[in-house]
């Protein structure tokens, strides 16, 4: 009789499936029960897929593994980055490659978004990683910026803003502070001058609160000068040329006059 146990179990599940109104819920429950069965094979499959399979296969194996380890922030970040950044098909035509890259970025961001709630104290870190992912994906494949619906810098800053609201550390605060020229340029490109100046004013205020006084002073005075240039009341032409050549201010260079 013991041999019949799996059959009886299946029949019970089948009956539940047939009689229950929520077929999807029953299917999900069964899937949750049987998913651990794959775990022992997954580690091997994942390593093998990374070395010999294609990125899609590795991504699918990683997703199954991550579903079983929902609070593993580093794991989510590693697999999301790997898929979004390394998964491209180099010989596709440019337009198709951009769409594929955007698709991978979208799926990777969704994976991290879903993981956020389970990551507890690491949630700000996940948000910061999402900001980095956007930046790096756009750097790899600049054409995907057009598919994002908003400027990459704005999207990245949105994630950092959420991370900051959740109590992110100094690293995120400084990242936002020193990335402000990109964000400001994004608003200027979109024709939102008021918001660009508001962002700059906020950065100037924050620069004054930095723990390293020398660095804070230098960056604050640079941003003040940039604000002057943007408002058109900067009179220091030689200084403006220097700022245009400043690598940190390159995104803003076309707007400095």
């Amino acid at each position, binding site marked *: 009789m013991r*041999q*019949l*146990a*799996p*059959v009886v*179990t*299946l029949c019970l*599940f089948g009956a539940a499936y047939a009689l229950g109104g929520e077929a999807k819920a029953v*299917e*999900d429950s*069964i*899937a949750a029960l*049987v*998913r651990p*069965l*794959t775990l*022992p*094979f*997954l580690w*091997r*499959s994942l390593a*093998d*897929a*990374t*070395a*010999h*399979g*294609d*990125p899609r*296969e590795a991504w*699918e*194996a990683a*997703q*199954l593994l991550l579903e079983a380890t929902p609070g593993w922030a580093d794991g989510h970040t590693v697999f999301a980055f790997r898929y979004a950044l*390394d998964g491209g*098909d*180099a*010989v596709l*035509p440019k337009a198709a490659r951009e769409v594929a890259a955007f698709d991978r970025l979208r799926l990777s961001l969704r994976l991290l978004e879903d993981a956020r709630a389970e990551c507890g104290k690491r949630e700000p870190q996940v948000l910061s990683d999402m900001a980095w992912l956007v930046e790096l994906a756009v750097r790899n494949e600049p054409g995907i910026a057009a598919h994002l619906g908003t400027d990459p810098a704005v999207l990245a800053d949105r994630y950092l803003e959420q991370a900051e609201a959740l109590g992110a550390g100094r690293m995120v605060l400084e990242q936002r502070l020193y990335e402000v020229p990109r964000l400001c340029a994004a608003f200027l490109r979109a024709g939102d001058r008021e918001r660009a100046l508001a962002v700059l004013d906020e950065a100037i205020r924050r620069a004054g609160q930095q723990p390293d006084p020398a660095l804070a002073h230098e960056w604050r005075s640079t941003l003040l000068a940039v604000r002057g240039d943007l408002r058109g009341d900067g009179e220091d032409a030689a200084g403006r040329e220097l700022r245009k050549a400043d690598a940190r201010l390159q995104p803003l260079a076309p707007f400095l006059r």
Partner: protein
Amino acid sequence: MRTLWFACRQSLLWALPATALALAVLWIGVATTGTGTPWLHVAAFLPVVASSLSAVAFWPPFATDARGAELVRRTTKGPLHGMPTATLGALLAAAACLLLLAVAASPLVPEPRAHHRLRAHERPLLDDGRIELSFALPEDCVELQLRPVVLMPRAAPEATSLQIAIDGKELAAGPVMIFGDRQLVRVPLERGSGTTVALRRISGNLPLWFDAAAVLAVDGSGPPRLLGCALAFSVWLLPLWVTLGTAMLLSRWLRQPMALVVAGVALVLQSLGQVGPATAAVTLCARGHWLLTEPIFWPCITSLGAGVAAMIAAMALRAEHRR
């Protein structure tokens, strides 16, 4: 013959419910996750483990304390007292179940294609010293897969750009960028487009090493999907063979619970530990590789040999014991 029939029937009694469970796992797993590979492994594992345990539990000489062991020893000829026949019965039962699974799983896997490993005519390294490598291209190829090992450059790393040419004619898609280690680049080819493929480094400084599996040419046509799937699943008979061989070898010292544990552990080691070729075969099948052109032949022979060696050792030990 009667032993074979009984062993096969007993194994089927255990393996068929396990196969039903495996089919359910496969169906639910694929339906809910949209991915097949990990579920294929679980599905193949279940009937094999059931057949293995049933043979050890059913045929008394596999353990020292099994009920009826003494009677079987007295009534059967040969040093192994029918254990090889019981093993054969278990293998037949497992083969039937695996075939059933292969039929169910075949729509989930891509059509099998021969993946030819191409070897460079020269030392397979593209660096400052050598900027071009050439490979002989088999006929009927429709895709080239590149997956070079990226080595560290002397200066700051810059992605290497490769121009691919078939019989001297550059591909219209233009150069491909290699920026990551083992980065997969798929290059579609026209069927019968040429006999030689050349990779020329045109920019960047990452040295690229093309080892045995770094350049694959994929055939345009292949055998039916069911055949590829059945072949991959049948490789799972080898771990069963080795497991029952090991159980035969240790049967003189083990009581039944321990014999069952040993059989289970041997099977787990061969599947999860990838000691044998079974998991690799299913993985390759799920990737659309035709197994007969893969270097999986030698691990299969090794597993087969290990099972035979265990059986011979068991016979030798029993003969020694009788004297």
